[in-house]
């Protein structure tokens, strides 16, 4: 009866390769098997070829990027950096006078006070003028809401000026104005977007 030949597992083959690379003795049984078995010998040779090819490729790759000139430059950089290792880093002195002028609490107080007073006065005047104009507009304005399309400035792009009057009493009028504007000839391209927008009524109907 012929005994069944048991070939070496991949890890055993690889151990032999690693041992060879490290200059160590491989496992005697594995080594003996590789020497005797043609198939395992071929597998081992293939493994060695692959691994050596990988290393060769990596060597060529690195050598192509790191040329002798690059390595020389790198070495010079290293030596230059090492020369500066013992030396303390150069510290730029911060201009002390400027610091005192800007941050000293007592100095230059007059100008900030004057500026603050001017700002407060401006604010009061602005609010007062605003109130006066607002009250005049209330008297002069005809309706609660005005939405007009002006074509004088840019004929191609309609300018919508909205003057909101308080209180906004008639929501229906406001919405109808919007519908009128949307129905205009220059807003047709917006209609598909409008169609995509869900309506409150539809949402409510869905909830019910």
């Amino acid at each position, binding site marked *: 009866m012929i005994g069944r030949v048991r070939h070496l597992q991949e890890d055993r083959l690889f151990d032999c390769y690693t041992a*060879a690379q490290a200059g160590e003795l491989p496992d005697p049984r594995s080594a003996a098997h590789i020497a005797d078995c043609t198939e395992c010998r071929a597998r081992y040779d293939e493994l060695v070829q692959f691994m050596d090819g990988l*290393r060769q490729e990596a060597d060529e790759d*690195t050598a192509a990027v790191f040329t002798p000139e690059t390595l020389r430059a790198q070495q010079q950089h290293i030596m230059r950096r090492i020369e500066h290792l013992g030396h303390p880093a150069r510290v730029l002195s911060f201009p002390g006078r400027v610091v005192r002028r800007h941050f000293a609490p007592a100095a230059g107080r007059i100008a900030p006070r004057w500026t603050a007073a001017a700002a407060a006065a401006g604010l009061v005047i602005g609010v007062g003028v605003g109130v006066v104009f607002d009250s005049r507009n209330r008297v002069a304005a005809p309706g609660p809401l005005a939405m007009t399309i002006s074509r004088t400035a840019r004929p191609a792009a309609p300018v919508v000026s909205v003057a909101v009057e308080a209180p906004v009493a008639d929501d229906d009028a406001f919405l109808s104005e919007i519908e009128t504007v949307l129905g205009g000839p220059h807003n047709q391209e917006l209609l598909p977007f409008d169609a995509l927008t869900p309506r409150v009524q539809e949402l409510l109907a869905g909830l019910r």
Partner: protein
Amino acid sequence: MSDPRSVRLADSSQGAAAEARGRKAAADASAPDTQLAIEVRTLVANGDLEAARERFAGLVSAHQRRAVRIAYQYLRDAAEADEAVQDAFVKVFGHISSYREAWPFEVWFTRILINGCLDRRKARARRDRWFVASEEATGLDEARYAGSVAPDNDPEARILARERRARLASAISRLDGRQRLVFTLCHFGDRTPREVSAITGLNESTVRVHLFRAARKLRGLLGGKS
């Protein structure tokens, strides 16, 4: 009759094995670079910085190429790898007084380098999370690569080489973090699993498992047998 050593001596890895033995010897505490590091430490301790820097240049020359290979293969960014290597050497010189010869210099240095690379990867991950990734770094690498290739080089060969690089980079980037670290150190940094164990603090058998899984995955991704 089969000789257990035949695997190591009789195939294409023969040269690599001899090289590896050399590496192993170099990693010994009495290795020239370790002795040099001890000298630098003594000079720094005596305040003779000029002489210390001169000696340190020898250490830089001895380890620079390997350091660049590790950093570049791990970070996949020339500018970042350049900075990482510079930082590692500067840090080594700055902390040479804390160097103990119980560690081979290579292991100590690689540990510092890898810590720097890990920090950079973390920082990059944070940047990628909050900012749009820049094509600048890749473009710079390409420019450096193109500049280094001879002008009369076949354009087709250049394109193929670029594709191969991209495939390799992509495959390595798909490795799990520890697998990538272990594989980079072992395969591109020429470290043994024992040394990688010392560098990373991982158990040696864990290193071997990560290394095997990384190689298996790469074979699957790059067209070899998985």
